[in-house]
């Protein structure tokens, strides 16, 4: 029987929305900020783990991240919730990668693994917020991509059928495997780590793959392999003042009326 390998791609992000940006380098100030797994990626991990529990054709689960050495922590966390093994893609040359270079690196790693039956991504990251690494990776691997999956309805060794959330409702889509999907948080409720998982994770050696191991040249990865560069990051100035009126409709109308009356003088 053909078995399916599931690869879950995850990312470490700053665990706060109170982000500081270095005005000189235009990059995030990471010092003193606790790093966490990108929240959407924890749903991707849970789906990978539960797929293996639900479907006997899933032979194994691998978690993958590209990041600095300390990103190994989320790969260990992945093992503690039941992922079989993890791989860290790390190399000083990977730094500053945009979605293009990131997708190139991840797809090279997936090829190195020997391909995957199913790739699972989180919908988007908390920091970059682009939601593009998933589809771009799928494109490079020349496999179909389905975004915003809220349920895996069925999967056999050849096909996957999913429900996904679009702006105006749900769609049910079927596609051939291998395929890549990105998941939204309705898809499951991530479990808490198990004690045996945590003990396995604490002993696990996470292999580190660098650019030469992946067969990628310096021009293909990191900042030099990126088409986009962050020129400036800034908080937009508030151009309008917003006020939310609360209470019943009558009360809101009353408040609006009072407000407008107060403004009359200036008009």
């Amino acid at each position: 029987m053909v078995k399916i390998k599931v690869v879950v791609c995850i990312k470490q992000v700053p665990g706060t929305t109170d982000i500081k940006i270095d005005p000189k380098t235009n990059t995030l100030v990471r010092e003193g900020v606790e790093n966490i797994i990108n929240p959407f990626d924890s749903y991707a991990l849970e789906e990978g783990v539960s797929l293996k529990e639900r479907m006997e054709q899933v032979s194994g689960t691998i978690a993958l991240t590209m990041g600095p050495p300390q990103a190994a922590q989320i790969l260990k966390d992945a093992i503690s919730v039941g992922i079989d093994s993890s791989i860290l893609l790390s190399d000083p040359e990977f730094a500053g990668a945009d979605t293009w270079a990131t997708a190139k690196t991840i797809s090279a790693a997936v090829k190195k693994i020997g391909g995957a039956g199913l790739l699972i991504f989180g919908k988007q990251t908390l920091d970059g917020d682009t939601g593009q690494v998933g589809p771009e990776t799928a494109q490079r691997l020349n496999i179909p991509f389905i975004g915003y999956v809220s349920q895996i309805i069925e999967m056999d060794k050849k096909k996957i059928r999913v429900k996904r959330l679009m702006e105006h409702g749900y769609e049910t889509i079927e596609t051939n495997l291998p395929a890549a999907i990105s998941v939204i948080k309705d898809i499951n409720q991530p479990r808490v780590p198990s004690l045996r998982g945590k003990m396995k994770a604490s002993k696990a050696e996470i292999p580190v793959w660098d650019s030469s191991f992946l067969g990628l040249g310096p021009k293909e990865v990191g900042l030099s392999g990126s088409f986009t560069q962050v020129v400036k990051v800034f908080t937009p100035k508030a151009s309008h003042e917003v006020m939310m009126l609360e209470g019943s409709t009558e009360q809101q109308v009353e408040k609006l009326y009072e407000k407008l009356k107060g403004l009359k003088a200036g008009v």
Partner: protein
Amino acid sequence: MDYFLTEEQQMIIDICREITEKKVKPIRAELDEKQVFPAEILKEIGGSDLFRLFIPEDYEGMGTGIFEVCLATEELSRGDLSVATSYAASGLGFLPIIISGDEDQKKKYLPGLASGQRLAAFGLTEPEAGSDAGGIKTRAIREGDHYILNGTKQWITNGGEADVYTIFAMTDPKKGSRGASAFIVEKGMDGFEFGKKEDKMGIRASATRELIFNDCALPKENIIGKEGMGFLIAMKTLDRSRPAVGAQGVGLAQGALEEALDYSRIRKQFSTSISSFQAVRHMLADMATQVEAARNLVYHAAKVVDSGKKDISRLSAMSKVFASDMAMQVTTDAVQIFGGYGYMKEYPVEKMMRDAKILQIYEGTNQIQRDVIALDLIKKGF
């Protein structure tokens, strides 16, 4: 505070904390109000290997001591005592199998209980026999290859939810407390039914129910140990589990103290936070000191139990009495620090105070525990 824990012990606490913060706190008030058994949370607890702790490795457990069970129980109690009680009651139900069960019973029952797929319960109390457990009337009469069970158990935690029940019944009433035996009864057996579910003051999300046996025929293999060993098994079990009741008190009180401390910092009266008033500060200081003292007594008692020492009744009873009385006091003081808001259901301390009371009652009332301590003290001195 450093308790010099191993990496594994710290992991147990971290896991329970994650369960408490993510899965329990957001819904505890609703579970309490609607009296909903926290089945989902217990599944999560099972998936996290927490039922495996005290079960030997040969039966898919992790072979830790009672100390580790206390760490888990304490942290779960910090979130919700109904959850912690349901967790601990399953342990109480399977402890007799670990302590006195035979190889076949261990192989048959422990793996499913270790994974949390199945829950256990401990059935000793009856309508006419509470503190005086020797007065139980449930009968088990041997007939060929079976024991025929008749009688009613009352207030059994996890009743209806559990699959495996340790039931104490008289095999030879003439012998009094030496005439009791312990049996394994499974949900679904003919002649085994559930009576009413209690509507309680506290731990309302836990299931407390009647078990009714009506000519329930048990295979003779379901006796734990030998005929007449029932009370010995019950006492051995309770001696080992009592530090975990103490741990419930420590966790519950810790939770109340944290709430009270946070509130005292933000509540302003007379233009200043109430934590600046000496009366409030001293209450907080006493609460923190009491919690710490109880924790140390519970940890010590658990470690003595784990050392394999035989003479553990006194210390084990002390840890239960001290920590449960402390929890009652600390949760009451937490309500006091909240003032009128503390009396309202919008804040968690109201429920914590209601929950605390049970700790002075179940697994032997604190009066009975004091009797145990005094008796041992007077008989043996130090």
